[in-house]
């Protein structure tokens, strides 16, 4: 395996753990949640992102593409890309003077990544922040790379959080456990069938890993995306509470993440459909009620938002 692809390094990240953090978004995820607001995070390959609003239809990309994957329609003055042929090689992004075409995903050599993450050291130390590995799924990447990364960062005294979907071999979690500060652990649905329908995979491994992680002393923040039409229901909230209590999951904090469709614009950029109608933003009353229910049932440290 080569170095993992990273599609974004977000500095001054203030909603992914404590303090001021830098969040590394790895590309590639074992889940394919239909509400995902970073759809460019899902696939393991580089992908071309196309910003139609910036495109003037000049045609430079057509000439630049070595795969002949780009076509220009003079009538509508728009450009289409045959994704089956596109290798996201970057020839058209270099040629585009309007920055309407960009490639998502680049490799970072480990030392280069560590150097980049250390830049904001003084902000981490002042604010009690650090580094968050997110994605995609950080723990589904080359684990030699990830373990080495996390060990080095931990060794230099930085707090490292991992935002994970949990659908990875437990061995991956175990390898990083000694060096991780907090796991931001997602629970999306409890019903295995519904989980498969909405995310593409069964949740058995996810829930099993959560129990083992808690048993092994991992520090856990539960993060729950709440989507109307999917899981924004009172019964589901009660079920999650019961699951956490029955399994004695030691939870430091619960974050209820309100679904938003801000990622919807990225689907057309990637040439993919977005199921807008299936999902909706949950109402505030529900969120307030859900937070109150958590707080009243043994999870006083519950918040709306990350």
């Amino acid at each position, binding site marked *: 395996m080569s170095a993992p692809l990273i599609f974004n390094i977000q500095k001054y990240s203030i909603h992914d753990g404590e303090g001021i953090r830098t969040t590394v978004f790895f590309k590639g995820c074992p889940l394919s949640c239909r509400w995902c607001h970073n759809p460019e995070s899902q696939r393991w390959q580089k992908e071309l992102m196309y910003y139609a609003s910036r495109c003037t239809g000049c045609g430079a990309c057509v000439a630049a593409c070595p795969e002949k994957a780009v076509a220009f329609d003079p009538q509508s003055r728009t450009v289409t890309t045959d994704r089956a042929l596109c290798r996201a090689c970057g020839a058209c992004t270099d040629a585009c003077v309007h920055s309407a075409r960009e490639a998502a995903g680049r490799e970072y050599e480990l030392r280069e990544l560590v150097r980049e993450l250390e830049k904001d050291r003084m*902000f981490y130390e002042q604010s009690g922040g650090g580094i968050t590995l997110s994605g995609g799924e950080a723990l589904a990447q080359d684990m030699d790379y990830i373990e080495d990364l996390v060990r080095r960062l931990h060794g230099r005294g930085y707090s490292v959080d991992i935002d994970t979907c949990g659908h990875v071999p437990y061995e991956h979690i175990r390898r990083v456990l000694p060096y991780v500060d907090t796991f931001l652990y997602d629970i999306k649905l409890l019903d295995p069938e519904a989980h498969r329908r909405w995310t593409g995979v069964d949740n058995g491994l996810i829930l099993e890993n959560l129990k083992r992680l808690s048993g092994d002393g991992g520090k856990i923040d539960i993060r729950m995306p709440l989507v109307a039409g999917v899981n924004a229901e009172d019964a589901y909230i009660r079920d999650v509470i019961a699951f956490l209590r029955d399994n004695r999951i030691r939870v430091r904090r619960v974050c209820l993440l309100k679904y938003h469709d801000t990622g919807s614009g990225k689907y057309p950029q990637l040439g993919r459909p977005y199921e807008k109608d299936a999902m909706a933003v949950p109402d505030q009353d529900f969120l307030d009620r859900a937070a109150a229910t958590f707080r009243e049932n043994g999870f006083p440290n519950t918040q709306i938002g990350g």
Partner: protein
Amino acid sequence: MAEIRERGMNDRIRRLRKQSVETQPHIYIERAVLETEAYKMYEGKVSVPELRALTLKHIFSHKKLYIGDGELIVGEKGDYPQAAPTFPELCCHTLEDMHNMNDRKVVNFTVTDEDLKIQAEQIIPYWEDRSMRKKILDSMTDQWRDAYAAGIFTEFMEQRGPGHTVGSVKIYEKGYLDYQQDIQAALAKLDYMNDPEALDKRNQLNAMSIACDAIMILGKRYADLAREMAAECTDEQRKRELLQIAANCDVVPAHRPETFYQAIQTYWFTHLAVTTELNPWDAYSPGHFDQHLAPFYERDTEAGILTRDQALELMECLWVKFYNQPAPPKVGITLKESSTYTDFANINTGGVTPEGEDGVNEVSYIILDCMDEMKLVQPNSNVQISRKNPQRFLKRACEVAREGWGQPAFYNTEAIIQELMNAGKSLEDARKGGCSGCVETGAFGNEAYILQGYFNLPKIFELTLFNGVDPMTGKQLGPQTGDPRTFTTFDQLWDAYTKQIDYFLDIKVRGSNVIEGLYARYMPVPFLSILTNDCIARGKDYNAGGARYNTSVIQGVGTGTIADSLAAIKYNVYDHHNFTMDEILTAMEDDFQGHERILNLVRNRTPKYGNDDDYADGLMKKVFNYFLDDVCARPNMRGGMYRVDMLPTTCHVYFGDVMIASPNGRLAHKPVSEGISPEKGADTHGPTAVIRSCAKMDHLRTGGTLLNQKFTPEVVAGETGLDNMANLIRTYFNMDGHHIQFNVVGRKTLLAAQQHPEEYRDLIVRVAGYSDYFRNLDKPLQDEIIERTEQSFGAY
């Protein structure tokens, strides 16, 4: 904006504030008339310092007084709020100037027919050949005049006096009768047997004593007026207030203040005297006002004669007083470099005491409450943040600042102290110091740190690229340092640029030395000299090197533009051969029209300052260090040295206007970058990267730097938002950053960002549980964020 005009803690303040904000600034011609009378009486009969002091005395003896309804602090520079005196001894306005002031759309002043008549008949005939502006321009070389006209540098003293200095604790420790005793003692010590300057010193000290008389006359006249008004007043409460004003003015400024109330009143009389004596670019500042007032506050509250609310009310009355005084009208290039009514009175709340302890006290919080309530751009109310200051103080200041009006700005106490010590001040004097104007470091009460003018670093690079020719005019302004098309390495280009910098700095400094000499000779400021150590002891004027420390400051402008322009050429021409020198020069001349590929490369595919990228940041350091070393090696004519500030006021707009497009893709006539902030839209990695880039500059070697940060309200909302803001500030200050201020942007900016995303690439907004660049959002989402902006700052 009705709501904004109604601010204030009670009806009195709301009324006074409303009057101040709604009154149109206008010319106050009486000062010029009285000054002309005084000069006609005394010029040639007394020494120059005495002439200046007698002029102040004449003005204060005869000017119209004003006590507004409900006022608790009294005294106006003019005869009504928003009345701006003119200073014909500095700049004798032509009738055309006066018409311009009246007619121009921004920073205008009403000029009446009567004003014009007086200007034509009395002022112009006497002053047109006597003004400092005339003397200065006559004394400059052709090279200086050409460079000045081309916008390579500006000249602060062309129509304003040296100054914008800051008061120390002295103001509250002594009355002007006490100063007269000090002056008498100095006169008695003069050594006529051995000191060839003894007579000059006598004249100077006599002048200071006359200046003490002048301010005491003003105080007595106000006491008399208040008593007269009280006698006629039928409202019992107002009568009592007027009698209290009279009683205060019986004590101050002749004697030292006894109460909190009198302390504020004595500051205000002092402020009026400094800014009436001359227009000291443009203001005088109370400096560590909280520390100076704290002993009075403690004594009065313990004695039961003052409540916190009363103290706040007096403070708010003073705020109105500051706002009542627009900066005197400017014209020409000086108007362009400082296009504002703001008088740059700057208050430094917080910091440390002279003993190095936490300087925050209850008055510090009263001042923050006052700022928050009043929301006036004048006084420029800022905070000094020391690592010793409580987090509560920093967070309260953040809370005020996040409301999105740029105040308070944050200054780094530890950096200020090191900057001052690096410039030769004692530790104690450094601790007493702070910032005035925008961000300029000075030893309050001990230093004449005189700003000389802005220096256009990107423009000089433009000249370098055209072999010393100004592409705007085709005129050969600089030396011929070679056609850059023939350069084969970046080092050759760099050498040419440094030769041009040397050349124009020589011109600038030569001019400044002459101008400082002219001020020393013709425009002494005996009143300001009383307040500045060690002018009395030395018998020397503030403008002639009488202060303990004497510094001349040149302000570098265009940090981001020059760093990115150097990077654009180094990266694309020499490192990667993306285009040739000829191609970029042609593109610049064509304003990048038809050169979209090159524009794309320099705008989007080249390392830029402000992203924590050593390539571009390294070039910023290179040019900064060169400029700083070049300036700081030079002595001035007052026994001190030249030093560097990195700030623009509004000069970055003017400096951009005199330029064609720059190599970094900045289009012709667009502003250059401001302060040490990155070029507009160049920083795309968030605030921590900007801060890291800016901190690579060695702030401690400067006399001040200016950094702006933009956020939308939601990014800094709630308790977490305050913590993040405070942490950004503390971290920047741990990195020795000098100053940071926050623009929390509203709807208008967001709408503009939607129209011109390329100019707002750095704008961060909170989306939904996370933050993102505004430009990265779809239009509907942008619309939604615009809709919800300008909401309150509740927990999020």
